[in-house]
């Protein structure tokens, strides 16, 4: 009998926990509320099935538990019942899969006007790159990475020279503007993960991955790494700020381009060489 009580408590408790517990997703800050909606549909369908199965079991145990003189029924198969159950299940599955695939189609279709921004992961630091005035990200190569050129940009590519490079700083995005986030890693797998954006994607050394989204809420959000990348994995945090258009432009104006960074590095090098010379 204890089993019946526990089964009923477990089903009821799970539902109450779901409805009453304070633990729910963080408010969304991107266009992917479609994902949240699909998740809600899935919660309803699966929740009903779970409760139904557990309560049915509880009823069976209560009703058909062994008592002296009882004998089980003998019914090897029931084609009709089995077909109904199969059809019902297929329908339920289709009800979850169909909206899922529709939303996935949106997820993989980057809108034509989306601007590009690059996120580069390394153990255990986030860096970012924005296209400069030409609106194009220049080419890059892991082999070209050096202390002065930490993202491995191609010095001979005019498109790269005006790119804005943010090494270990904050990324700012403009509210309401769709953005294609290009992802690159220079060492191991990482994953650019901002819980409020819902979208996430692994970064894989040797290739460029991407996802897209439109920020819908201004604010400061934490960037986490969601793919195990070594002992520093939990410390690999960053910040992304969603700005209004005016704030975004102010921020953008204060950033340095790749060629400015190169020039600064060269000046520093020359100065060091001059300082070092008299000592010899």
């Amino acid at each position, binding site marked *: 009998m204890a089993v019946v009580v526990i089964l009923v408590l477990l089903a009821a408790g799970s539902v109450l926990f779901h409805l009453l517990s304070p633990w729910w997703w963080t408010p969304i800050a991107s266009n992917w509320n479609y994902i949240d909606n699909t998740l809600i549909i899935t919660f309803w369908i699966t929740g009903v099935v779970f409760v139904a199965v557990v309560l049915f*079991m509880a009823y069976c145990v209560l009703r058909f538990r062994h008592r002296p003189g*009882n004998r089980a029924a003998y019914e*090897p198969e029931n084609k009709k019942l089995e077909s109904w159950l199969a059809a019902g299940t297929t329908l339920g*599955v289709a009800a979850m*899969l169909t909206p899922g695939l529709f939303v996935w189609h949106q997820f993989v279709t980057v809108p034509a006007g989306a601007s590009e921004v690059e996120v580069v992961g390394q153990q255990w630091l986030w860096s970012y790159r924005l296209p400069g005035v030409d609106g194009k990200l220049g080419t890059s190569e892991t082999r070209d990475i050096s202390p002065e050129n930490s993202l491995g940009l191609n010095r001979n590519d005019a498109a790269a020279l005006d790119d804005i490079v943010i090494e270990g700083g904050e990324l700012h995005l403009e509210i309401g503007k769709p953005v294609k986030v290009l992802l690159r890693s220079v*060492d191991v797998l990482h994953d650019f993960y901002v819980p409020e954006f819902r979208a996430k994607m692994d970064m894989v050394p040797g290739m460029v991955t991407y996802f897209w989204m439109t920020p819908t809420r201004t604010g400061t959000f934490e960037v986490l790494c969601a793919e195990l*990348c*070594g002992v520093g994995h939990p410390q690999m945090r960053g910040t992304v700020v969603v700005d209004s258009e005016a704030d975004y432009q102010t921020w953008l104006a204060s950033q340095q381009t790749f060629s400015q960074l190169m020039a600064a590095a060269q000046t520093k090098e020359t100065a060091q060489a001059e300082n070092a010379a008299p000592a010899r």
Partner: protein
Amino acid sequence: MVDIRSGTDGALEHAEVEDVELYHPHSWWTRYVFSQDAKIIAVQYASTAIAIGMVALVLSWLMRLQLGYPGAFAFIDAERYYQFITMHGMIMVIYLLTALFLGGFGNYLIPLMLGARDMVFPYANMLSYWIYLLAVLVLAASFFAPGGPTGAGWTLYPPQAVLSGTPGGKDWGILLMLSSLILFIIGFTMGGLNYVVTVLQGRARGMTLMRMPLTIWGIFTATVMALLAFPALFVACVMMMFDRVLGTSFFMPAIVEMGEQLQHGGGSPILFQHLFWFFGHPEVYIVALPAFGIVSDLISTHARKNIFGYRMMVWAIVIIGALSFVVWAHHMYVSGMNPYFGFFFATTTLIIAVPTALKVYNWVLTLWRGDIHLTLPMLFALAFIVTFVNGGLTGLFLGNVVVDVPLSDTMFVVAHFHMVMGVAPILVIFGAIYHWYPKVTGRMLNEAMGQLHFWITFVGAYLIFFPMHYLGLIGVPRRYYEMGETAFMPASAHTLNEFITIAALIVGAAQIVFLFNLVWCIRHGRDAGGNPWRATTLEWQTPETPPRHGNWKELPVVYRWAYDYSVPGAPEDFIPQNQPGPDNLTREAAT
């Protein structure tokens, strides 16, 4: 359609087997240590698996202590934490679950349930165990190696698995892990071939395929899958070892590690993930299918009722087994593979839910109008259904590609796979041990200790993993040594983590009661007799309990399916498979 039940039929000729001469042991060593008797090998496999499983249990305690009380235990630093989670995962999936279901239950039950004297190749079967033991020892050795075991996560994703930012990446850890896996696969292949050939060639007269108990169908299908899936892991391990030792670049692109250019280039980290999951997803069902099969027999026996829809149950096992080879990339929706794969793999993954759901319906419909004896095996079977349904349903979140995006790599995933392939199959293992221990030892396990063990384990495990889903929903990522302060994670979530840790410590401790019960009852258990559950299958009809080497005096002949419980008109509520029956006790007479 094949008549799955009784009568004399033409199928007898096909399944006819000649009697075999077995190796006769001459000493204690060849009888109990280097034994070729599948039953002894089964106990060896099971004992080794449970022993290394206890290590994994302690590791889970340690990692839960860190998550519940971050920083409170100085010796659990980040390196050790990642070593603990890696070893816990690998031990549980491969060295405990796979080895126990196939090496343990497979060895014990296949010959006995099919009415064979032993496995078809007893010598290779013995080798299988000793290579498995070697694999376990190599794995355990990595705890004592310089640098300790690998901390790459059980998925061992390169490049980090072989780089210095990961514990054991540039030391012995990863090498010992890869070597151990390679050994395991070699050992498993010898055992696995044996199980498949024995099922196909070694069945008793009259034991047609469609009369086999579902336990055997589950183990058989899982073994076929393992023989096809493990080679992918084998290849991946060998290639990664080459990358690490010889400097090849199978999985290594150009890499700048901590500012230093490495001499690798051109390789693909994603290739490893495809190979790993081509093995890894079937592996889920390699664990699940034997559990499906066993739990079907537990429910049927203890509800005194035939399993509902036997033929559908068999086909569901086979279809799930086949489909599980085309769903692997649902583990990789956010891996950076071509996103259009998502359409295909989400569809196949959700299709697999249909035969799986049908199995669940048939289990609960077997309870319907049954005569349910609430024995320990039945309790564990009921608990299995609850946890498996729960874990299976959350699989519909993660399998539906777009819903996976926010949940992937969070604690939701951890909660899901623990519920569905950790808790659920382990509950079946417990139920199966309470069920078959009387045959293995001739004695019953202690009921009071069993009840204590059951209630703490079932309720406790549910309390650990059900709330954990909601941590993932908040957005808490998995594999985090510490969360620190984050805006999206409320302070109350830390309290929840503490609660989960306390529950995990208690559930872990309850397993000590179980182990004590196992050992204590070898000598002090109540005498079981030959067939304490009044079951129909052949292993309960052996002339001796425990069965001697060779199992039978004269090979049994099978006259009916495994589920003749409560047949109308029969004097008892069960008819053993080897009992020739009056022909009027058939399905036609029942309907």
